[in-house]
């Protein structure tokens, strides 16, 4: 059998590796136009900041692929021909497949504003973007980052590390407030400001203003404020990278439409990761999952499906993590920015304003629904176990130490949390809205 995988990101490579572990006699080909070898996209920022070299971001040594008989092809796919079960590459090569996995990832969203194609205006998603950003920012001293999401704050930190003044333009009331509850969003906003980043909240961008050479020299906000800059990072989300499939009979919407087995409408063609869109997502789950973790889990599920263990993709209990400058973030279960009628919330913040803990729980049954941790490390298995088994908030607070994952000798803040919880409980002062 001949298995062809488009994309050498975490999804494509996890598929390839897991299939190889189970099936030793299939042919596996991975095609990527981005890089010769799999590297960790999450580490792009660290290359720019000088924490790592590109070499360090490759999770496997180069000999690994030949040893595991995974053929790597560096090309862009130009066309998919489902009748002849083949794909065409930009090198005019044609590769046929018995099963095709599309894991082509994302591309940065465009702003649609005037001046978005100017020199010095760009997004950040892949290696080429990073190279461009390195050139674009080599001798500048001020930059603007548009968008208050995960890549936006990464870009701000990257630029800051090279001594560039950064202004962040954020639409929400506080950083990432469309995902984080207001308290956490405010905490992070303060932390960003503490690094000397100028954060403009509740501000939207109107246009990018060019200089005489066609390079961005300023941006204008919706309140007509002009902010001079020599670079503008546009980080307003990503969308499935599926333009090369336009002419194909694959059904697409924003992404490639798949069922719960990651099958597309064409037999033997599958899609997974950022580029896939579920036709019928489960209640409360997004149709497109654009995370490292979900990309990996979808790939693990798809590999099983390919080697015949047909099982519905099940994301399990939601979790995610990030790092906002120096503050680590972990979340488990359901923590929405706004509480609904059935949910109560307990929030603790350290007086230093750099650490926080939130537990959301059911108003009636008191069962735990989700957690946010800022600057605190917590065990995933414990958090998930408590959510899955409907532990009550009292149980959770009482046993927080079991899940504590901060390094040895760290201050056991769970005692402070326990103390504040008992005060809140006595006064019945949990947040309900």
């Amino acid at each position, binding site marked *: 059998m001949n298995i062809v995988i488009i994309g050498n990101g975490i999804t494509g490579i996890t598929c390839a590796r897991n299939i190889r572990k189970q099936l030793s006699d299939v042919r596996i080909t991975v095609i990527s136009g981005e890089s010769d070898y799999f590297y960790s996209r999450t580490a792009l920022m660290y290359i720019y900041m000088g924490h790592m070299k590109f070499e360090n971001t490759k*999770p496997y040594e180069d000999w690994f692929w030949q040893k595991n008989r995974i053929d790597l092809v560096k090309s862009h796919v130009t066309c998919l021909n489902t009748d002849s079960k083949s794909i065409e590459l930009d090198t005019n090569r044609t590769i046929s497949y018995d099963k095709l996995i599309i894991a082509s990832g994302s591309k940065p969203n465009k702003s649609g504003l005037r001046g978005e194609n100017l020199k010095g205006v760009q997004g950040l998603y892949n290696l080429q973007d990073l190279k461009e950003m390195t050139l674009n920012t080599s001798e500048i001293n001020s930059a603007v980052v548009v968008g208050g999401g995960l890549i936006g704050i990464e870009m701000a930190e990257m630029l800051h590390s090279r*001594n560039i003044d950064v202004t962040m333009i954020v639409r929400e009331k506080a950083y990432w407030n469309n995902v984080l509850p207001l308290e956490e969003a405010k905490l992070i906003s303060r932390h960003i400001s503490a690094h000397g980043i100028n954060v403009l909240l509740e501000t939207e961008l109107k246009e990018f203003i060019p200089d005489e050479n066609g390079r961005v020299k300023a941006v204008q906000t919706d309140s007509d404020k002009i902010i001079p800059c020599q670079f503008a990072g546009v980080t307003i989300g990503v969308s499935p990278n599926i333009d090369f499939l336009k002419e194909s009979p694959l059904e697409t919407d924003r992404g490639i439409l798949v069922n719960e087995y990651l099958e597309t409408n064409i037999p033997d063609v599958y899609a997974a990761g950022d580029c896939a869109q579920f036709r019928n997502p489960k209640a409360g789950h997004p149709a497109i999952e654009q995370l490292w973790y979900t990309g990996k889990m979808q790939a693990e599920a798809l590999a099983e499906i390919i080697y015949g263990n047909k099982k519905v993709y099940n994301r*399990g*209990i939601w979790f995610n993590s990030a790092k906002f400058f120096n503050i680590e973030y972990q979340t488990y279960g359901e923590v929405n920015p706004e509480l609904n009628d059935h949910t109560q919330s307990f929030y603790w913040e350290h007086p230093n304003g750099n650490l926080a803990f939130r537990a959301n729980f059911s108003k009636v049954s008191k069962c735990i629904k989700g957690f946010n941790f800022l600057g605190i490390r917590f065990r995933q*298995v414990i958090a998930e176990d408590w959510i899955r088994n409907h532990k009550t908030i009292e149980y959770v607070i009482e046993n927080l130490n079991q899940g504590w*994952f901060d390094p040895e000798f760290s201050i056991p803040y769970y005692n402070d949390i326990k103390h504040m919880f008992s005060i809140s409980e006595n006064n019945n002062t949990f947040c309900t809205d």
Partner: protein
Amino acid sequence: MPDQSLSIAKPSESHFIQKVGATLAAAAILCAFIAAFGPGKAHPLLFFFLITGLIAAGGITYSIPYYKAIPGIKNNGIMQNPATSRGAIAWGIGVLMTGFYIILYWYPYYLEGLIRTMDPLSLILRGKISDQWFLYGTFYTLAVLIMGLRFIGKYKHSRYQIFRTISVMFFQLGFAFLIPAFLQKLNQPEFYFSYFWPLKYSYLFPDDINYLISSGNIGIFMIFWGLMMTFIATPILTYNYGKRWYCSWVCGCGALAETLGDPYRQNSDKTLKAWKIERWMIYPILAFITLTTILLWLNSWKSGTILGTFSGLFSQWYGFLIGSAFSGVIGTGFYPIMGSRVWCRFGCPMAAILGLLQRFKSRFRITTNGGQCISCGNCSTYCEMGIDVRAYAQKGENIIRSSCVGCGVCSSVCPRGVLRLENIREEDRFIPYTRYEDKI
């Protein structure tokens, strides 16, 4: 909350302060050169204060930005800086350090002027004038203290790192510098209570033992201490806390690697090939020193009839090849090129024993937090022992490797809080994380 923005130095200001610090340190080295060529003999006190003062001032100045910064890991520019990424400056420092070791071990008379600058201190501490080893010990301790200060600043967000560094600074200053010096002043054997066989291999050789026995009660205590540490305390402590109790909390070699060597930790080789070489070196060296010790005892028991005139040849060769050339010249001189733990990783027989215990009989592991790894590679990059930490973490496996010295930097640099050093149950430490959904 206080407004921190005013107190935070911008990266450019930090650069400037660090350049000043580095310049002061370079001036100290220049003074040492000048002193070595003779003037040190004529003006020992002047040069002593010039060298130590400039080193201290340089190190402290260099560390200021770390203390001013918002707590957290910032390895900015390490891979772009020629001093830390095997550039020209790194090679220059490597040549300088290697050269120093070669002169120190085999041509100490070239250091005469420099050695004399240590006379005043040596007289106070040891009651006799300085020699090359006291000069070396002073520089060594100074490096651990000054660069330890820098390390604490850099990793000030982690109490594990702070406590550990204070510990190695304490053991270096007290157990490896002051106490051996005072012992000499009191006409007692110069004994290092923080070094044990087989790292300090001669401590269980017949010659040393006989000498200690002849030194009376304190000598007997030293023998007892050495035997107890090697054969009783080592297995017990390693079972409970892993190899780290020694390698990154007590040991002087570890102390220098963690402090002076910290800027170079990312240069350790992470390839599978390097791991193979490591195992082919460290265990034969352990076998060699064990064999040598046994042979020497047999020889001594048979009153010299086994080895005859070759008595001690083994130990002499070991001393030259491993004790001096490897641990000093390569082990420290090559820091800037091969990373900070060259000796500990490829040569130290003590590390070999501790490693075997850690791998097969210990409660220590680095726990991977579920499926949280994002494969970024910071952990592997900054592992001074060249362990590909990520290879385990991304599979949800705990990291249990004989070479791990438990410095905790992988955990400190992890941007997702995935790694935790801990001593818990021995039984389940090799069981990897499996998603609940995959178990049912």
